[in-house]
């Protein structure tokens, strides 16, 4: 198995991100997948992008412009 490297962008593990951990993922060219070096997460770029969007679920005001701070 070839040594892993970085992918096109330096994706973090979406599973770890959701538990407030910023961990770089590595890319396995043979399997065409990213994997986390800490937790068991593996996924394609498409899956990672989708999960990153999902991770924003807690930011209910992500698109809101707030003007009232009382």
């Amino acid at each position, binding site marked *: 198995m070839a040594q892993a*490297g*970085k992918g096109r*962008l*330096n*994706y*973090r593990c979406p599973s770890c*991100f959701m538990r*407030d*951990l*910023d*961990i*770089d993922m590595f890319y396995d060219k043979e399997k065409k997948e990213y994997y986390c070096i*800490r937790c068991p997460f593996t996924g394609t770029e498409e899956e*990672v992008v989708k999960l*990153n969007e999902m*991770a*924003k679920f*807690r*930011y*209910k*005001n*992500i*698109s*809101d*412009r*707030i*003007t009232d*701070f*009382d």
Partner: protein
Amino acid sequence: MDKFILNILHRPEMVPEYAQNAAGKGDGGASESGIYKESLDIFKLQQQIAHENGFKTTIQMTYSSLFNDEAVSIAKEHHEKYGDEISLTLLGLPCKEFREKYKTHDFCIWMFSMDDKKAVVDDVFGKFHERFGFYPLSTGSYYMDADLIGYIKRQYPMVKCAVATCWEEGPKAYHTCNNSWYTFLDGGPWNPWIPSKQNTHAPAADENEDSGIVAVPHISRDLLACFDGNGSNFGTHPQNVLRGMIYKDGRFPYLYNLIDQYRSLKKYNRGYAYNMMFVGPGWMNKKGRWEAPYELLVKSYRDCMAYYAGLRDRGELQDMTMSEFADFYRSCHTYKQPECALWKDILYGSQKQLFWYADPYMRTCVDMNQGGAIVDLRPYAAKVRRPVGIGTGNVYDASYPFLIQSMYRAGYFTHYAGKGTIKSCKFTYKGEEADLCLCRTKAGFSEEEGCRILTLDPVEIELSGLKVKIQSVFTFKEGSSEIKITRRVLEMSDPSCEIGFDEYMTACYGTTEYPEDMNGIKLITRGEKTEEIVYAYRDREACSANGTSAEAVITPVNTKVSVLPGTRGCSSYAHEGYAFSPMFTLGLRGTLKNGGEVTSWLRLEKAD
């Protein structure tokens, strides 16, 4: 006053922490000269964006940049042309010259031994003088410990301002970086302050305690999101907002909401509000940062600066350099003047509201989502001396100790064995008990006769069929080192009833999630008789009828904390913890009738 002040800082870091590491991974790495060029280009771009928007900046020269003729020349030119302040940071130490001289990869100034701190400071300040012909008026790092500030002031008395802490960057930042980022800096003020000589985080109470500088925080952080989340996701640092993935379709209104909420803090601070923006070059490198591409990183910087410029053009913002700000701050602040922030959630849609208060005697946080429970308490009155760095016995932990920290030490307790740190009030009737922690509410702020007053909207509890409406009021009297807490029974469904109250505070001490040695803490109750327990994890309780106080003397943090009743007739108690619950509880118990109220004080003092 009606002022919103902005400090913009840039640093030509030359070998940014992130770029150097990123370059070494995966794609063959980059040469040091290549990184130098890219880093300087990023600095130039940041300067260009600021100047295009009509702002002057504070250029914090790094050690490595002092060896670079182009960086020095740019700083001189921009000082002449745009009025930028040429300053000096103790960040950005790593470079070939530094490694050859100091034979270490350490780069955080507060972690060096005192001898090395002095050597580095003299080296860096000397080099700065050699290149510019004068000494800087401002400096900084992620953290500046009291001994370091003291040394700089003695040797370079012209320094008047410093970046001196990152708000709530402690165990949370450590965890977020997979337990590898050693910025244990929790417990300081979120907005500028005058540090005391004894401990940077604790503001000076008078001229004798004044360290001689005005401290500013490293960026302005979300006072709710950072209390429970990664501090590096929620600040006036556009790329931090991207790090937190708080954007959609290339738009990040949260950043503007954050800036605007900081602007709104004027109403709690006599018309004064503040923002600080300080982005290291590593955050705009061409490889992108994590999943954010370079283009988005730069766009976020441009957009943020343009937003600030729009505010300025409407007369709603004034930019200052760091030394200008120090003069301004001292001209309009007294030592004992507190910093207040009634902060609302602007990200999660929860309507949650926190009240933050900091003065020379305490930093505290009241959580309206828990009925006005105190969820954070730092005893600044103790001015805890905590030297930090190699050779001090405390290499890395620069956090100011807490007595209450509900995130690290449980808070309102939700399982069956033990207690968590919190200050709240419980009510009882016919064997049923209700804690105000479970009553979500909101609060309003007012200022009267030297007091900052937080008045909570009434909440309703139900005990064995009896409905009771209760209101809490917190009063912070300037310079008193006390919080006055009033609980009023506004209504009862049966006005003839009498309910029990327990105004309690469960506390411990520490700077992290892990318990400290509680042995030897003295718990004392005073009243008809005085009782004392010396903490030994034996789950004992002391109680005094007609109580006049319940006290704890916590020697490791040089703090005495007391709970004092406003009237006689209640009992004071102190409860020791046990091995599985290493806390202590101080409280007052009594009864209340319809229309009645109980007032108590929480007082913080130096133990010695």
